[in-house]
């Protein structure tokens, strides 16, 4: 067993190897480029499964000593505890299925090898992030994840919207990285022996000796970093745009590799954050706001992937609500609930995204739900798997989403009793009810997306759709097969066979994920077997988190309320959207301001444009002027001065004359001799 622990480094290594092979051999492998990457991720998955049993809270192993300079000591050390192994198994499994799906979805793309090389690199970064045992390495891989997401979102970089989305993702993430970096510096400064490893930094002795203010600052900064990576208010704006990348990338980002990084970091640092209870409320409130806001945006979006994107943000909000509920003796339960939601969410969200990819495959890259309907007969497998994903996301028992959502609601409810102060209890109670409301909205928009896509009279997109015209005018190159390979999976050929079920290489991952979405809740839930929480208890520092000392009776009102909200939402959406009906339009008309607000995503992007981007642009214009007048000339001067220095001053010294050189040497010796003799 211990041998297996020492080979934990293989988990990031295999995908990296696959990526390198795909990158180096892409020229020869061509349409087979996915094989090394899928094999690499698969091998990593096998190793990750093997690590599940030997994982323990203190199990770490140093792969090698990387940096040892003065007082900065960063070994490449991996930690194999409950949290890590759970994440690893989930990340590698979902990534593998996504990669297999992508092998079918991306077929024929000119950048096939590049795509899979990036996927391998992405999985490498994410597994490295999860495995590393110190903040520096985590930070490095954190940046690696950011870079890979940039590469993949902007995969079709010829498409301006994709390039912009990639840039947006990268820039917004930089804002968060900045917070995480400062947190690292602070930890280095105040940690015992300047040790950045989790073993020391999160130890009780270390946390006890840190000043309270510093702890507060570190906790807030880590959360700041997490808000960007995990798309929380106010830094969530990059995620909806990130679907400009190929759909498997969206699945990867939303389910496995990217947005979970922030949640993971906060969960990993839970022992630290629990020292700063005020931060927990901030975390919960941010999650709550995010969940509500994005759910209400998702209600009205017409773009299937966009609905799913906002639902991811909303579900991430759920996870942060769970993390934030970790107050007092609820702490352990809350963190476990959040991680459990992350775990189940990975399955059904990957499923939903891949399902939408399958739909796009059938519609020739069109994803606007107004342009197709009633696909359930044409795409039976996609339909059924999507339905399972939708049910799971809506939290209908006994699917996965029900159990994890219920755990988070239970944690919130417990927190509203255990927070200690009256105002905090009120806050948590509010958050709880907002969470229930969000659950209802989630079920509603999920149902809407499902019914609009698969029910009603059958309709396939045609170029004559009014929306197609409108879209063409709006953004010239968005998701239309007519624009060639640069948009969506449509490579011209899809026009011919529209409306066909995807090939088995795409449907098999869908089926596997659907099975996962059905069973993982039942198998692992604390309500049933409790395997998941037992496993997570093997995480370093989690035993110090508060947990219920006396038996905790399960509050049956919570699952009932949650299920009711879900069922109600689904039924309502079925009523409104299963068949064409005038109700939605009438409702939209009646509630026009609300509808408009939601449809336009509460103008948050516009808000940023006016408050952040335009002032910055103004500033930039000012600086541009400054630049043009002052800096430009300065730069010219700096380029000119060294040249002047080099050419006018130094070049004559190097005049090519031998005896001159010898004279300089002799003078140099004389000068140095003189200096030395003058020194006393």
């Amino acid at each position, binding site marked *: 067993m211990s041998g297996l622990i020492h080979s934990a480094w293989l988990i990031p290594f295999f995908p990296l190897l696959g990526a390198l092979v795909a990158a180096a051999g892409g020229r020869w492998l061509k349409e087979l480029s996915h094989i090394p990457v899928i094999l690499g991720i698969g091998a990593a998955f096998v190793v990750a499964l093997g690590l599940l049993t030997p994982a323990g809270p203190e199990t770490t192993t140093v792969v090698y000593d990387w940096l040892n300079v003065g007082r900065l000591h960063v070994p490449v050390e991996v930690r194999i505890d409950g949290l890590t192994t759970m994440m690893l198994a989930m990340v590698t499994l979902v990534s593998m299925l996504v990669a297999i799906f992508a092998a079918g979805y991306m077929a024929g793309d000119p950048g096939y090898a590049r795509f899979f090389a990036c996927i391998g690199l992405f999985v490498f970064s994410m597994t490295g992030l999860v495995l590393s045992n110190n903040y520096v390495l985590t930070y490095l891989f954190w940046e690696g994840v950011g870079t890979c997401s940039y590469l993949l979102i902007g995969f079709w970089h010829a498409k301006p919207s994709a390039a912009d989305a990639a840039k947006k993702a990268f820039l917004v993430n930089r804002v968060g990285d900045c917070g995480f970096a400062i947190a690292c510096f602070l930890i280095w400064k105040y940690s015992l022996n300047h040790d950045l490893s989790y073993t020391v930094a999160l130890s009780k002795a270390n946390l006890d000796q840190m000043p309270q203010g510093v702890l507060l600052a570190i906790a807030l900064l880590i959360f700041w970093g997490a808000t960007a990576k995990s798309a929380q208010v106010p830094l969530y704006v990059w995620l909806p745009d990130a679907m400009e990348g190929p759909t498997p990338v969206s699945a990867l980002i939303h389910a496995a590799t990217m947005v979970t990084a922030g949640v993971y970091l906060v969960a990993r640092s839970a022992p630290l954050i629990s020292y700063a209870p005020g931060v927990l409320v901030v975390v919960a409130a941010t999650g709550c706001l995010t969940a509500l806001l994005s759910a209400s945006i998702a209600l009205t979006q017409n773009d299937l992937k966009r609905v799913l994107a906002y639902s991811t943000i909303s579900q991430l909000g759920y996870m942060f609500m769970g993390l934030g509920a970790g107050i007092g003796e609820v702490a352990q339960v809350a963190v476990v609930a959040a991680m459990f939601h992350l775990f189940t969410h990975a399955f059904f969200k990957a499923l939903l995204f891949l399902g939408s990819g399958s739909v796009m495959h059938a519609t020739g890259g069109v994803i606007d739900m107004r342009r197709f309907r009633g696909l359930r007969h044409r795409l039976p497998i996609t339909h059924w798997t999507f339905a399972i994903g939708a049910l799971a996301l809506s939290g209908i028992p006994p699917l996965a989403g029900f159990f994890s959502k219920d755990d988070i609601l239970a944690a919130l409810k417990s927190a509203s009793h255990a927070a200690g102060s009256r105002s905090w209890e009120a806050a948590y109670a509010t958050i709880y009810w907002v969470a229930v409301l969000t659950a209802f909205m989630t079920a509603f928009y999920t149902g809407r997306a499902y019914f609009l896509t698969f029910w009603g009279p059958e309709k396939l997109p045609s170029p004559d759709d009014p929306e197609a015209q409108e879209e063409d005018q709006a953004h010239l190159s968005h998701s239309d097969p007519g624009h060639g390979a640069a948009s969506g999976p449509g490579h011209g050929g899809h026009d011919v066979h529209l409306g066909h079920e995807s090939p088995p290489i795409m449907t098999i991952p869908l089926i596997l994920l659907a099975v996962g979405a059905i069973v993982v809740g039942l198998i692992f839930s604390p309500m049933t077997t409790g395997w998941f929480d037992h496993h997570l208890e093997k995480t370093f520092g989690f035993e110090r988190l508060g947990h219920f000392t006396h038996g905790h009776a399960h509050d049956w009102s919570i699952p009932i309320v949650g299920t009711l909200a879900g069922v109600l939402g689904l039924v309502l959406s079925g009523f409104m959207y299963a068949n064409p009906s005038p109700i939605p339009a009438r409702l939209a008309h009646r509630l026009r301001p609300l509808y408009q607000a939601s449809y336009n995503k509460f103008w948050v992007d516009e808000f940023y444009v006016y408050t952040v981007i335009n002032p910055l642009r103004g500033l930039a214009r000012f600086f541009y002027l400054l630049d043009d007048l002052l800096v430009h000339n300065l730069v010219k001067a700096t380029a000119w001065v060294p040249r002047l220095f080099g050419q006018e001053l130094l*070049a004559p010294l*190097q005049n*090519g*004359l*031998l*005896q001159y050189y010898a004279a300089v040497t*002799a003078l140099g010796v004389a000068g140095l001799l003189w200096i030395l003799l003058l020194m006393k």
Partner: protein
Amino acid sequence: MSHDIPLNWFLYFAAASFSIGLMGVLLRRNAVAVLMAIEIMLNAANINLVAFWRYGTPPQGEGPLTGVMVAIFVITIAAAEVAVGIGLILLCYRRWHAADVDRFDSMSG
């Protein structure tokens, strides 16, 4: 016998011939003359070495002939240097048809 001439005289002589050699390197235009000047510098060091050997006691654990041995090696090295130097000067002479060191300035800056 050795007291007839003090060590300092040798040292002054060596320093003087060293300086003469250095001046020769700096001032003579002809490359062959520069080569000769370098030889003078090496030989000045040889005088030093031999004089120090003759006037000093070798410390314990040191061979009795160190200075002389160094000098002999330096003489051989000087011979090798001359051979190489003449070769290089000939090579340049073929290109420039001159052996003046201040002509060889095609590279600078």
